[in-house]
């Protein structure tokens, strides 16, 4: 992960920190804009990809700038292992992430340069590829920061 600065980078760091703090997050995470070698399908082993789609920053009341973003999480579970249910593994991971990113949850810490919270979560039905069962979780995140003087 880069040490980029700026409000989008700060929001990305906040989202990633919340992701990494989620129990059961797979060992393999495809970070946005970094090449990933998808692991060989292995029974019960999931992985996920993350990406932040930041919206434009707008004035929100006196002295505040607000941004509505989407933290896109794509979950992968192997198919073709009859002893382990890919759907079950995917459901478990999606459930853990949905709990971690429940609407109303504050993601930022007081020391963070942006205040960020979850205001919506949507989940897409799983779709099957040749090797992986894939499911998308869309976390709607709103961030606020003080407008620079």
């Amino acid at each position, binding site marked *: 992960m880069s040490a980029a600065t700026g409000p989008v980078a700060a929001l990305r760091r906040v989202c990633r920190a919340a992701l990494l703090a989620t129990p059961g997050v797979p060992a393999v995470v*495809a970070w*946005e*804009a*970094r*090449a*990933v070698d*998808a692991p060989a399908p292995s029974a019960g082993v999931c992985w996920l*990809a993350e*990406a*932040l*789609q*930041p*919206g*434009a920053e*707008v004035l929100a009341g006196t002295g505040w700038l607000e941004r*509505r*973003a*989407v933290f*896109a999480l*794509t979950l*992968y579970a192997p198919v073709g292992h009859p002893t382990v249910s890919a759907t079950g593994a995917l459901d478990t991971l999606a459930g853990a992430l949905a709990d971690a990113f429940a609407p109303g949850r504050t993601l930022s810490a007081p020391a963070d340069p942006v205040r960020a919270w979850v205001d*919506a979560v*949507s989940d*897409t039905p799983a*779709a099957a*590829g040749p090797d*992986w069962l*894939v499911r*998308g979780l*869309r976390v*709607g995140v709103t961030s606020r920061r003080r407008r620079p003087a």
Partner: protein
Amino acid sequence: MATLRGDRGETFAAAVGRWTRRTDARLAAVVREAAFDLAEAVSVGNAWGTGTPVDTGYARNNWVASLGAPSDATPAGAAPPTRPAGGTGALVPDVALPAMQAVIAGVRAGQVLYLTNNTAYLAYLEYGLTVPAASDTPPGWIAAATRQWPAIVAAAIRRVRGAVGRGVRV
């Protein structure tokens, strides 16, 4: 009984009628401005969204605006063009946004406007259902653009209000 007349010498009923027509026109202008911004954000991209990822331009040019019901059309063709081996191939010409603009120009406040894309693989682009490469456009651009809707409308209101303030008739 005396008839109320405003400073233009018109009756009170006529003044209210004129105000109602102007308000309807301004509401429609806000709807059109905001709808066009959203259409642009999901298709070619603007300050509110990154737009549809482009390889051949097929998906980007399958956006359709329709009133009252979603469209099942694929204006960019029945299937995406095939790139010739070793060549870049021709991009699908940018036809979607002008066509959407023409539909949006006729929308009135209270009507339901649909923005539809019937590209078979669009879900793969939006939801990232393939193993991602570092160069991929991040998924979720439609969700991200639609989340900007309150701000898009607020910006459209400011623009229409500004136009009215400058004496532009809307």
